[in-house]
């Protein structure tokens, strides 16, 4: 057996995993994660995770969009190549509003998606957990807890035993 990535425990229901996550955290593990086929209500709280900071990034993205749109329309229309059309002013917030709005939304949407991927460290096509055969069911109907070997409290025997005691239907060690 090569390097060990950590221990992986499989649970059958959302209720079980919420309880198990709470216990793992209470035990003092830090380098652990849960894996579920759909977002499970209350699990983030049980793991002690704070709310995502993504909205603040997106706010910034939206503000950039507004700024970019106004500068673009003002500079092209009123500075670089002023042209009188239809008796309208070279620049006015009235007609600039639609494009400003669209770019605000576009920039915000890009920030949401790419910000989310960046915060999650995705795409990451290889991950040691994929080595575990049972892990294929994480996208189907099973709920997992993984505890990494680099966690200071990790101990092959004890950790596996502890995970079993939480009601896991299967516990395996995952190779790096």
């Amino acid at each position: 057996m090569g390097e060990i990535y950590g221990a992986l425990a499989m649970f059958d229901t959302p209720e079980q995993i919420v309880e198990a996550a709470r216990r793992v955290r209470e035990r003092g593990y830090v380098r652990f994660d849960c894996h579920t086929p759909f977002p499970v209500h209350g699990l983030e709280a049980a793991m002690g995770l704070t709310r995502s900071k993504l909205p603040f990034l997106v706010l910034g993205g939206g503000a950039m969009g507004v700024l970019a749109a106004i500068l673009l329309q003002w500079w092209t229309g009123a500075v670089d190549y002023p042209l009188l059309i239809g008796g309208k002013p070279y620049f006015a917030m009235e007609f600039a509003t639609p494009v400003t709005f669209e770019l605000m939304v576009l920039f915000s949407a890009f920030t949401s998606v790419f910000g989310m991927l960046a915060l999650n460290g995705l795409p990451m096509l290889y991950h040691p957990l994929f080595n575990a055969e049972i892990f294929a069911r994480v996208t189907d109907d099973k709920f997992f807890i993984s505890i990494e070997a680099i966690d200071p409290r990790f101990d092959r025997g004890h950790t596996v035993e502890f995970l079993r005691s939480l009601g896991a239907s299967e516990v395996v060690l995952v190779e790096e």
Partner: protein
Amino acid sequence: MSTVSEQMTRPRLVLGEQTYHTITEAISKIVEEKTPREWYIAFGITGGMTVMLGAMLAYLVMTGIGVWGNNIPVGWAWDITNFVFWIGIGHAGTLISAILYLFRQKWRTSINRAAEAMTLFAVACAGIYPLFHVGRVWVAWWLFPLPYSQGMWPNFRSPLLWDVFAVSTYGTVSLLFWYVGLIPDLATLRDRAKSKIKKFLYGVFSLGWRGSVRHWRHYEIAYLLLAGLSTPLVLSVHSVVSFDFAVSILPGWHTTIFPPYFVAGAIFSGFAMVMTLMLLARWAYKLENFVTRVHLDNMCKIMLATGTIVGYAYATEFFIAWYSANKYEQFTFMNRAFGPYAWAYWIMISCNVISPQIFWFKKMRENVVVMFIVSIFINIGMWFERFVIIVTSLHRDFLPSSWSYFKATYVDICTFIGSFGLFLTLFLLFTRFLPIIAIAEVKGVLAHELHQHGHGAAGSHGGKH
């Protein structure tokens, strides 16, 4: 709490004895099974239509815009009608996904994926028309503010340029929203894939998703934000489309209610199209447990509501045209209802305002055949709405000597049919290669229902076979 003599409970949204595993099975199966023969037949037909679209567009580019029936004073006709028609259809997709998500309407989960896909394909179809109507399609990139040798910039005072921004933003954001929703389901397909190629492709596109709660945390917020952004975006896109008409000074086009009226119409037509497609998919793929009567009932109610709003807009326009005491306004509306295009006007009224009124009756909201017929009526009626607005306002302009009657050419007609071909081809490809129902989300709803109905730890006794 004191006794409640009669219970009123929430109807269940996932029917049958489902576990998480059976949901995975039921939906993945559609993609994994051997391609049915019917699919090939359907694909052959729609593919042929798409080829026709290509041929028509090629003919148009080689010959000129004159192959369409547009001619002064009717400078805009089927092209813009079809553009608005397709964009409108797209809107229900976003709406089902985004607004119903924000309103915590759990019933959306069964239909949102297909609806979002529909949005993308409809936007693709819509884009064709203005793109080719510019004439020299090979310089269509001039529409974007890109520096090039002439040193000029696009005119930001023109509503047509706002359209460029609105529609391209809309296409992009819809794609992102759809794709973000797909990631966990692509991972499901990846984990079930038998062949190397499939595993590789689904693997790459699922970005290595491993259901981590640390990821779900950001993922859910990103999804919520996208929903929050898409909602005003839908409103803005169709408002901008309405500006194409409403900023002008043409009676019948210039009226202040246009933005919300166009948005309501878009939702209306889009829901009708979702209804048509979902009824077909439900029947073809036997999805009765996921697209339940509750879903259909709700969709009927939304069509009734939006149809009535559209009726409200027609009535208001008519009333204010009279109230304005402006004779050009009055003439335009009388001409619409009783002039040479009266037939189109009354088709519009019967299909859009009258036909959905049947959904006041619960019996009718339970009858799949009636629903299907009405949804087709609405599709037709909403096409006519755009036709009526565009052509009847133009064909009798301020100079009676130039009045005329628009006739569509065979190129107009074949291009329009061809765009249906493109739309359906894309939709068929989608049902073949991607999960047509949001697997992860339906599981979330199931978990909620199991929890609510006291089944508690019903989890997954399905097991893997």
